[in-house]
């Protein structure tokens, strides 16, 4: 599937889906160092900072210049935003490969 590449870099790892409406303890976010974090819903700059230890970021919404994507770029975290309905193909724990340059996301089933 393809979204908008917002920060270059290729990464492979398990996906962890964050629901915007559910509060997640800071400790849990910090412990996701080897994960690709996928934001479902509001993709706020604050959330990106909280998740800075992750290997890559995916998001259902957002665009190249959204504030959160600009923070991902500053933190040099590969990032693909604007996946839209394709986001529904992501499953917690499944492996994925993302390319932040082309916006391509491959999900291993």
């Amino acid at each position: 599937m393809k979204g908008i590449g917002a920060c270059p870099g290729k990464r492979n790892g398990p996906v962890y889906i964050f629901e915007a409406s559910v509060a997640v303890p800071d400790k849990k976010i910090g412990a996701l160092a080897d994960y690709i974090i996928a934001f479902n819903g509001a993709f706020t700059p604050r959330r990106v900072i909280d998740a800075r230890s992750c290997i890559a970021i995916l998001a259902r919404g957002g665009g190249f210049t959204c504030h959160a994507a600009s923070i991902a770029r500053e933190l040099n975290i590969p990032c693909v935003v604007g996946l839209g309905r394709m986001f529904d193909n992501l499953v917690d724990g499944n492996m994925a490969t993302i390319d932040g340059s082309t916006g391509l996301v491959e999900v291993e089933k």
Partner: protein
Amino acid sequence: MTLRFRNLAAVGSTAHGSQIDEFLTTEIDGEKWTCIRPTRRLSRLEFDVKSKGFCQVPVVLFNSSPAACHLDDENRVWYSNLPEPHEIATSFLLADDWLSDRLAERRFVFDAIKTQVDAIHATLEADYVKTEAVVEHLRAWKELCTEAFPYMFLVLTIDDLVLHLAQRWIDRQCSPGQRTELLAQVCRSVYVRNAIANNAIPRLSKSLQFPPSQLFRSIGYIDRSIFLRSEALANVIARCEVWHKAQTILHVTERASLAFQLSEENFHVMGSLTTACENLLYRFSLSVAPEAPTEFANRYRDLTLEECVADIQSRSTRRKT
């Protein structure tokens, strides 16, 4: 330099990720009214603080007659007689003298906002906050929003158009992957870098919130040479066989970088002012209604600024007597 804008309106979504069809339009008595980003709702207080600035957009940017605006029943802001995005984009891209003048004026206003934020912080750091200081800061808030909004509007509706135009020119010279690398290098902001370093990130919602967010200062400036440090851009330019094409790519990339930085400046500087004023109102609410300051402060959202001031002054007088 010839730059074409046709087809830009056909872009499916904005680079911010919001859909262009979210722009609502209607016609009343032959007059066109537009609602920009209708999902954003303003309280009565915020509308009162910002509405004069909304109306000043055509006056300040193009020396033409003021716009009109109103808040509907669903707290959405509607405008008429605002400059069209393509008009602003054309000036932003091609009228260098016009842009230099607007940016110089903008710098003056945004520096004044940073000074005002510092003054509010100093007031809030004191053990006792004088009513006169609260009133003075609140009135300054409205004045600064009035002055700042036209310069905020300068990029509010066009940053996506400018970015899209840059993308189209870059796409002629490189692959989509290389394009992302290039744009990721030029769409950088000193404000974002400093905000991360200082853990001073504005929240996304521009609406007043109580209890307020943590106070923060926005530290940064517009660095117009960022694009020149992009290796990816240098490679693209080196591959251009025609000088005119290289010149155009350099130009649109510089303006895309500038529009991005101005947009981030809007977000960080105006966010710091809103947060400071929220904290001011909340601090006063704490002093007069310590048992329920949040509920008390939320009342102010439904008043105009002068109604807030009158309320603050009358409660302060009662407290003294």
